[in-house]
């Protein structure tokens, strides 16, 4: 059985289609491993019993034309799943059972996949270490003392630890790419408007995107093909012809022009990150593509812009948690007192901090100085990319300024935590696609990732570049199964 969980999604799909494995075999194997992996704390809610029932049902009448035939998988607990508790990692939603399904998960089940459970994440996806979850922090399968990154920390841990063959996360400022980088897996943040936001617990609506997290680029392409769709239920969903990403995947990137932005060489960046980047540039050249030095002059303004825009949107999105319509309610002396106590007891410290920032920047007298200013700088950041893409097809950067840090290391200093997303945030602000692929290890043997940023709706191109580089890098994740007794 243990061999099954080591297989990639592509291999599992093939083995089920060839009838070498049944959906029940595969589902049982991942459940077995998930049950032995409680110490990672990757799951918030499991749905193992009904997963086995669904797998058996699939096997009785298998539809092998589907893209994910009988494949079990767990998803971030930010996606509403009908009749399955959806918490967003928060106390305020800890008893919320959606009566509807998110569009991206619906797309996945329509292609034959089976839900294993809901994965841990930072509360309302606000965090870079999975330490803000009401349900406790998640451990990194690489090392017991390391954070898995965040906010999709449970998702990253589940894929790297082989509890789920593949998963979906969400990325508002790096929440797919940073944890993918910290755990040695692949994570794609699609173009804004590519995947529907319907049924995803909202954090910052102009930045949020769902995307796949996988063991390799091909698996990532396959899942992206399933989740990306036009959806009238999301007013910012964009109607365009989507590629068959996995079928059209090619490692031929000869002649492509890849930009290397000098502003991503930040002060205090460890030498191993710079070395990794240089290695990446060499891989690009080995693949027959060309690298070109470019400038994205407003890069250093991206994080301050993000920490106005994202909290502002969050403060208004999270106004809905008032203890009336759903979720946790605290006792209060009157209506206002009830609201205030519910939100004080129901939200964790980081979420409260961001709501406060957002409320402040939107409050009377400060709007122009902060929110309007941030929207203008956001435009400049987007213009930087537009300008760069006149000369190059894609951009290569490190995914993060360091490898995974220790649990507790940054919890008392919000700004140092925020700095983690320095290379990922500009991509969300500009609405572009970005993929993180594992590209090497630091001196401790912890994984490091490289990010490839594409033009809007050019996912196929960055997947191809990632695919070509993956072959050259030949990365092997160092997982010892330390948590399995």
């Amino acid at each position, binding site marked *: 059985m243990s061999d099954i969980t080591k297989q990639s999604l592509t291999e599992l799909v093939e083995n089920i289609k060839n009838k070498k494995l049944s959906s029940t075999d595969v589902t049982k194997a991942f459940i077995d491993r998930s049950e032995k992996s409680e110490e990672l704390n990757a799951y918030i809610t499991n749905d193992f019993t009904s997963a086995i029932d669904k797998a058996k049902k699939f096997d009785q009448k298998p539809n092998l034309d589907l893209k994910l035939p009988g494949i079990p998988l767990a998803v971030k607990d930010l996606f509403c799943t009908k009749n399955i508790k959806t918490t967003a990692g928060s106390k305020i939603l800890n008893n919320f059972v959606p009566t509807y399904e998110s569009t991206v998960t619906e797309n996945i089940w329509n292609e034959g996949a089976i839900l294993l459970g809901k994965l841990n994440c930072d509360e309302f996806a606000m965090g870079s270490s999975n330490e803000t979850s009401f349900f406790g922090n998640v451990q990194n399968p690489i090392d017991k003392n390391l954070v898995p990154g965040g906010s999709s920390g449970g998702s990253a841990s589940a894929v790297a630890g082989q509890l789920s063959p593949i998963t979906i996360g969400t990325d508002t400022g790096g929440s797919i790419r940073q944890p993918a980088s910290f755990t040695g897996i692949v994570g794609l943040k699609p173009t804004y408007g590519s995947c529907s936001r319907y049924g995803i617990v909202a954090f910052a609506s102009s930045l949020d995107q769902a995307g796949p997290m996988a063991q390799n680029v091909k698996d990532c392409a396959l899942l992206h093909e399933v989740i990306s769709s036009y959806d009238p239920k999301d007013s910012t969903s964009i109607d365009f012809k989507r590629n068959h990403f996995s079928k059209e995947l090619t490692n031929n990137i000869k002649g492509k022009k890849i930009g290397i932005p000098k502003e991503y060489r930040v002060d205090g960046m460890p030498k191993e990150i710079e070395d990794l980047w240089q290695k990446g540039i060499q891989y690009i050249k080995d693949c027959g593509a060309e690298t070109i030095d470019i400038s994205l002059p407003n890069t250093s303004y991206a994080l301050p812009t993000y920490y106005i825009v994202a909290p502002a949107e969050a403060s208004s999105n999270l106004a809905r948690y008032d203890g009336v319509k759903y979720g946790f309610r605290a006792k209060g002396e009157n209506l206002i007192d009830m609201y205030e106590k519910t939100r004080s007891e129901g939200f964790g410290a980081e979420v409260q901090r961001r709501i*406060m920032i957002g409320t402040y920047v939107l*409050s009377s007298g400060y709007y122009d100085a902060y929110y309007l200013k941030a929207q203008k700088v956001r435009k400049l950041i987007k213009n930087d990319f537009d300008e760069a893409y006149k000369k190059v097809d894609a951009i290569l950067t490190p995914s993060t300024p360091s490898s995974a840090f220790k649990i507790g290391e940054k919890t008392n200093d919000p700004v140092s935590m925020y700095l983690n997303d320095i290379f990922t945030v500009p991509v969300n602000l500009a609405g572009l696609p970005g993929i993180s692929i594992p590209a090497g290890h630091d001196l401790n043997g912890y994984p490091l990732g490289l990010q490839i940023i594409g033009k809007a709706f050019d996912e196929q191109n960055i997947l191809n570049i990632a695919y070509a580089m993956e072959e050259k890098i030949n990365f092997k994740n160092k997982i010892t199964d330390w948590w399995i007794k």
Partner: protein
Amino acid sequence: MSIDLKTIKHISKLARISVDEQRAKKLAGDLNSIFDFIEKLNELKTDNVEPLTSIAETTLKLRSDEVKSKNIREQIIKNSPQDNEDYFVVPKVIE
């Protein structure tokens, strides 16, 4: 720039989050260090820059105004902490 306790109390009122004295002090410290970091934006001149209000450069689609979900009261009420089957119930607001 400095955010004092009085401002924290004011924002917490607007945000409908009750904070005690200790928490307010912690928040003031955190917000000040975050805003010190945000102030960096003042280095940039943006007078002639159009604000980016929507990242997806498309016009919103219109749809016909039809009722698609009917008789879902039960589903809507289902997750409420307190209800009487027909309505959400809140603490008394009219004396």
